[in-house]
């Protein structure tokens, strides 16, 4: 005979605690984070290009100034070298001070610079 008040209800419902966000949510989250990262990388690449341009132009603008200063110094050293050569070779007849060893037109920089 059944007990008074009937049988207890059969416990058929599964007891599963919440297991966190679903796979779809995690996938969407990962894609979102990666997407934001790649967006920043792309932005950073564009920015890096502009920073490089800025640096290049800052140097381009300084070239004439530095070159002018260097030219004056090179010219001074060349003149000094010729004067020195003239002085040293004064006793040698037919010696041309400062004569280049090459006959071809066009600039060849001084092969060595004497720093005095």
């Amino acid at each position, binding site marked *: 005979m059944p007990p008074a008040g009937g049988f207890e209800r059969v416990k058929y419902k599964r007891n599963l605690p919440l297991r966190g966000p679903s796979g779809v949510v995690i996938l969407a989250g990962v894609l979102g984070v990666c997407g934001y990262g790649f967006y920043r990388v792309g932005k950073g690449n564009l920015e890096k290009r502009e*920073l490089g341009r800025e640096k290049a132009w800052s140097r381009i*603008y300084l070239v*004439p100034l530095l070159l002018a*200063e260097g030219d004056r110094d090179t010219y001074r050293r060349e003149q000094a070298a010729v004067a020195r050569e003239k002085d040293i070779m004064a006793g040698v007849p037919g010696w041309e001070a400062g004569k280049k060893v090459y006959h071809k037109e066009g600039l060849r920089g001084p092969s060595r610079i004497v720093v*005095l």
Partner: protein
Amino acid sequence: MSNTFHDPSTSDQPYKDPTPLPESIPRVQELGTTSAYLKSAAFFLGAHCKEFNEDFMLCKAEDRDPAHCLKEGRRVTRCATDLITKMRENCLKDFDLHAACLEKNNHEYYACRKPERSLNKCMFEKLGLTKTIPGSPEGKTPIHLVEKPVFTTIQK
């Protein structure tokens, strides 16, 4: 002429150049500005001395011989000296701050936007010079005006 090295700072005589430029070349005082200040002033130098710089570079393109462009070179140096003097007169504080910042940050512009902006503002107000980077994409904020750049220093 002697071959031993004499440290000029310990000498009791003022340094005398043993081989000065020939008398026929007019004198020009060398600029002598250090690298951080030059980097800080580079874009204003390009804007202020454009004609002299271009003239000099065209002359150099003609002939690379150092003796060929001495005159144009003197003009370039005089113009640069003029600009640096003006900057020192008008914006010395901002100029110093920006140069010091560059010196501290490996001469990277992106690390020194704050002092750079105050210097640019001062330069525009006092001397009317603006920093422009040629070749920047049209219609976009130039890199030195971007408010929130990706590349910043790690420490603020």
